[in-house]
């Protein structure tokens, strides 16, 4: 868990974002995106805080946060796997990739592994259709996946974590 001073740092960063957008509810989506960058997700207290600061209601903010797929109300793992479920990926077997990941990590779409390392999220389309099937792990994109290749990539990330430790 984060110490108090670190939490203050995060709130300070959020205040800077709010100032940059004139505390305007018209910029709510951008503000929530930055808040999520800062916190990793949108905890309940941030929803209330942003509502108070932009002069709108927590219900409105929650409405926006739950409408868009980018926003998360729960913390995510160290590595966020975004598995593309677009048309080209579907035609080229993304369902088999999902089955392999689900089988390997014992999580389904939206869940996080017990060790907090991986979160699996199915996304609509990453726009790399010519390399389908595709997945992104944090900011890195991997294409022309096979079930075996996907698992080996996840193992690389797992080892990366161990090396860092």
């Amino acid at each position: 868990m984060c110490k108090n001073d670190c939490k203050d740092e995060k709130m300070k960063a959020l205040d800077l974002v709010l100032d940059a957008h004139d505390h305007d509810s018209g910029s709510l989506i951008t503000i929530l995106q930055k808040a999520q960058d800062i916190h990793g997700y949108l905890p309940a207290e941030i929803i209330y805080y942003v509502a108070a600061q932009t002069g709108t209601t927590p219900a409105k903010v929650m409405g926006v946060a739950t409408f868009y797929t980018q926003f998360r109300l729960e913390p995510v793992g160290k590595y966020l796997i975004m598995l593309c479920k677009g048309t080209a990926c579907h035609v080229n077997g993304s369902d088999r990739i999902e089955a392999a990941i689900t089988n390997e990590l014992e999580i389904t779409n939206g869940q996080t592994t017990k060790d907090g390392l991986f979160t699996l999220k199915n996304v609509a389309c990453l726009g790399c259709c010519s390399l389908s099937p595709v997945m992104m792990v944090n900011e890195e994109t991997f294409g022309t996946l096979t079930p075996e290749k996907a698992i080996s990539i996840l193992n690389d990330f797992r080892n990366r974590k161990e090396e860092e430790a």
Partner: protein
Amino acid sequence: MRIVVGEGSCGIAAGAGKVYDALQTAMNPSDSFELGITGCIGMCFLEPIVDIYEGGDLLARLVHVEAKDGARIAEAVRGGDLSSIEDLKIQEEDAGFLNKQTRIALRNCGIIDPTDLNSYKARDGYKALEKVLKTMTPEEVIEEIKTSGLAGRGGAGFPTWFKWNAARGSAGEEKYLICNADEGDPGAFMDRAVIESDPHNLIEGMLIAAYAIGAKEAIVYVRAEYPLAIIRLEEAIRQATEAGLIGENILGTGFSCKFRYMAGAGAFVCGEETALIESLEGKRGMPRLKPPFPAAAGYKLKPSNINNVETFANVAWIINNGGEAFAAMGTEGSKGTKVFALTGKVKRGGLVEIPMGQTLRHVIFDIGGGIRNEKKIKAVQMGGPSGGCIPENLLDTVIDYKALSATGAIMGSGGMVVMDENTCMVGMARFFLDFTSKESCGKCVHCRIGTKRMLEILTRIVSGKGEEGDIELLEELCNAIKDGALCGLGQTAPNPVLTTIRYFRDEYEAHIKEKKCPAKECVELLSYKIDPDTCKGCTLCARKCPVQAISGEVKNPHAIDQDICIKCGQCYTLCKFGAISVE
């Protein structure tokens, strides 16, 4: 000489970043050649791609380059003798992919450095803006666009000049120009490529449009799933502002226009223009009732004009070359060129820009090289979740808004997903309904509940529980949703179902009546069997079966227990003797 690495999202995913690093490492301080980047060349099937230029001439295009090739490429360029990297050069038949295209919207993609304003300027960049601001009235600009016949490239194909004229004619000083870069259609990436590879072209087109309608602010609404596009756009806006091309008194002409972007947050419905406006205002992206149209009351209820990225990408070219040159290409009702994202089971996938009026067959076979693994083509899907599947026997349909609509599909934004004989069309319809039911914003009942009911019926059919009358029920639902839904998402959501029923009714019937999937894709309708005469008893399948459904003695034929089998298909893939069949 100059070495240029293609760094679009596809290139980077294929390893272009590592290739660039390797080339940089291989260079000496004394080297006289330069190293640079470009955006998406559009030949995604050959990534990573490295081009070698002498001045403006392309000397060699190297494909499938790996980091380990970096040193010998640098060595060859240093010595001025490219024969040692002959093996990396593009094959002639692959080069045809690009040579058979006519590039207008993509004219700079894969050629210029998207991070460098001067690179864009060297190819007539911002000349059209200067011409417009210094020598043309807004009315003349709109007239030129009218002459060109340019229509909205986002899918609906509405005449661009008409929208501009309506926004120009609306009362009020405060007007907005908006670019729809929320390319949510799964299977499409034309807009991403333009922004990543030629962001100034988009900015220039938007500034010209802003001048034409009288807007003082231009905004790009871009998908958050395109991080590289956002970085490149942000940088381009900064450069253009610094160069006096954005802001107050642009090029000393007295015309002023602010320019910014907003990242979307992941909602397909925001591609609908009124939903996009709601989202720009920081709200849930739920469509508004029309009228009033955005031209009268859009963003902040002020007159607004919204066009797609590709539409704007054509504007500067039209101003520079004249509307007539643009209108000279295409068909009676569809002028100019169209960009397609060719993907799926096609051999050569990537970005294809061709004049309207060519056939689908030409795109898929002559440019795309036909179907992978020598399989038969079954259909091509156009227009994503709003479009439909066009069967093989209609592939001679020409690319034209009306001709494509007559098939039940639509031109759409440009997604073109090719399917072979192993693609189940009922499964395809279910895939799209799964998508639209999740993306339905929930505002109107027809879309929210209608898509859900359709998905339930399709799910039941692909899992072997289809009932007599399901096809008719689907058709009834489709028509009700088309009539009753509020926005384009709902009104077009039935298209994938209607077109697959129209052209592949036999596949629906096989699923429902015989409980069989002719494409052998619907897992729950399959059964795996071992042919005792071909089986050598190697035990591989039995050892690998995740549920121990296969039994048998070594060197004796094995058998699958159908009650235990989960139809994962592992044994089928593993068997080296082809002894396992699937039905």
